């Protein structure tokens, strides 16, 4: 792994939001949306980030791109710390780092034509002149790249379907030849058959352009499909991080196991005979997270230590990290023991 260059390194990233006290109470509350996460992304890699709503996955994506000013921690892009940069320096790096958003309806300016939307980054960054033939050709090229007819250039966003709008968003993100794209739930708003189109497109583009993705989503099966490695988040912290197959074949953290277990598999034979573990309750509020391990309130294996001591992230197997006191390679953190599940199947 050391041979592949680290494109991005996130070290102890924190983003806390302060909720001001109300008229009647002076006390301020702090929501620890992202609370000390560390990981890295290699060139041309897809890192998946999963978690339920409120786990801080979107905030993490934005804090990495400095769209939220991080409270603490470092974000190193090719060794340079983004958090210490001034606005000018940061702007010079922006073309390398782009973002694709969830809602393609809200992220395209309704008064701009597709040509303007896709070409604007090139004009702003001084790469091409507004109205030039060169710019028009580049926009046409980008539209072809994402599978749209260049004749659509003069149209406006409302004339497109959801999937097509997401393609426009992708074309815009690609216009400056980025190295890294944060994709924040890029397919959640789309229908199943359209999701597959967009995911295939993203994978093709990665192959052609060698761009790295941070793919943020709540749909575990889709994240598994597209990612090389996956980070599982819960209440602002990383629970587990490993490559895609290990996460599903040998999940170590009880939360990952219950997430896996909760995802339905589109096959009735498997679904009926499958041994399930269903988590009770809801995720606690990030404004008032539990002590010790944040997952202890819902964890079926929690021991006293989990309530008081926050578990450190440990590397259990090479490249397989988890933050659980019980995790080892003998199945200490397994909710359903491997023997039992074999009996059932």
């Amino acid at each position, binding site marked *: 792994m050391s041979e592949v260059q680290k494109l991005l390194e996130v070290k102890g990233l924190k983003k806390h939001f302060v909720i001001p006290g109300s008229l009647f109470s002076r006390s301020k509350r702090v929501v620890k949306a992202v609370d000390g996460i560390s990981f890295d992304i290699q060139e041309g890699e897809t890192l998946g980030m999963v978690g339920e709503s409120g786990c801080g996955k979107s905030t993490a994506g934005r804090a990495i791109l400095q769209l939220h000013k991080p409270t603490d921690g470092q974000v190193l892009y090719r060794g340079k710390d983004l958090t210490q940069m001034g606005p000018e320096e940061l702007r010079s790096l922006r073309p390398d780092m782009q973002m694709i958003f969830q809602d393609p309806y809200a992220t395209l300016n309704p008064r701009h034509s597709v040509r303007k939307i896709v070409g604007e980054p090139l004009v702003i960054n001084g790469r091409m002149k507004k109205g030039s033939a060169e710019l028009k050709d580049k926009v046409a090229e980008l539209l072809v790249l994402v599978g749209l007819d260049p004749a659509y250039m003069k149209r406006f966003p409302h004339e497109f379907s959801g999937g097509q709008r997401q393609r426009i968003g992708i074309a815009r993100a690609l216009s400056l030849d980025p190295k890294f794209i944060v994709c924040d739930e890029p397919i959640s708003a789309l229908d199943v058959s359209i999701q597959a*189109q967009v995911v295939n497109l993203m994978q093709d583009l990665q192959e052609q352009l060698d761009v790295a993705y941070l793919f943020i989503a709540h749909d575990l*099966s889709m994240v598994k499909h597209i990612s090389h490695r996956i980070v599982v988040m819960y209440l602002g912290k990383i629970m587990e991080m490993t490559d895609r197959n290990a996460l599903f074949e040998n999940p170590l953290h009880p939360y990952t196991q219950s997430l896996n277990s909760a995802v339905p598999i589109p096959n009735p034979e498997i679904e009926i005979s499958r041994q399930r573990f269903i988590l009770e309750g809801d995720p606690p509020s990030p404004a008032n997270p539990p002590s010790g391990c944040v997952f202890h309130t819902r964890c079926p294996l929690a021991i006293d230590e989990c309530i008081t001591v926050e578990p450190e992230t440990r590397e259990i197997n090479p490249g397989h990290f988890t933050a659980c006191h019980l995790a080892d390679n003998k199945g200490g953190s397994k909710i359903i023991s491997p023997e039992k599940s074999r009996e059932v199947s």
Partner: protein
Amino acid sequence: MSKILQVEDLVTKFYTLDGVVNAVNGVSFELNEGETLAIVGESGSGKSVTMMSLLGLIPMPPGKIESGTAIFNSKSGQCDLLTLDPEQLREVRGGQIGFVFQDPISTLNPILTIGEQIAETLIRHKGISHEEAREQTIKLLAQVGIPDPELRYKAYPFQFSGGMRQRVVIAIAIACMPKIIIADEPTTALDVTVQAQIIELFKELRDALGVAVIWITHDLGVVAGLAERVLVMYGGRPVEIAPVGDLYKDPKHPYTLGLLGALPRLDAKESKRLESIQGTPPDLLIPLKHCPFAWRCDYAFDRCWKEIPPLIKVDKQHQVACFYDLEGGGPRNE
């Protein structure tokens, strides 16, 4: 098994300023007692409008039910849901047919307590006293897995999480021991661990009460572990009806095949490229004279562009609306 609901040739249209939206174009299906039927389709496939039509919840105008019958075998005899007057419909809705919608926060009244909203249904349909209703409500709250039901009776919807709110809506749906529960995307707004809880609760209640369930969803994963039969809709028409096992093992319609291919599988060892369906769903403003899926279908041939394929039986319980025989690899012999 006796049929509890039989829908024949339902057609619902919306007369809007842009033109006539052909939302539901001839839907027929039946529901047996105690059975779970899933209706699967993408947005705009007409799955929700079908159910809203049955419940008399289509705003008219602009909506209009053009034709069709929906024979409901109720406790007090047969009736056609589409011809009931508003008063009779109110008796059926919430009484003999319960329903659960996608978004629990907009289903519940924000200024009434949870308990009042459940008790209201009981008082209205069963004509019991407030005290009795309160007692039964507390039992219902316990039954749907809400802790401290006596305390929670006085709570307001905003004090509940999404999953708990959906439990309350389910309590309202089952309050009067309905014969049918219609659930329209009841878990779509929920997180995956909470979704698993709600599905489990549904299964428990269904088995305990012997109620028939119509489960509307776009998620073929959820359907696999829940339904007995599946109806796949596309462009306002049913394209395939089959027992759940047959549908996944042996899909007969190219659209069903495509949908299954478009789903990533958590249990897959290798990440294969997803099979996407080209193009987008049909524009419902244009009345169709041919198969609604023909534009996106890899197997379409000249007949598909001339006629609308009717639902035909290919097996005892398996019906499909397609001129092409996927197994035989050519036009279907009739």
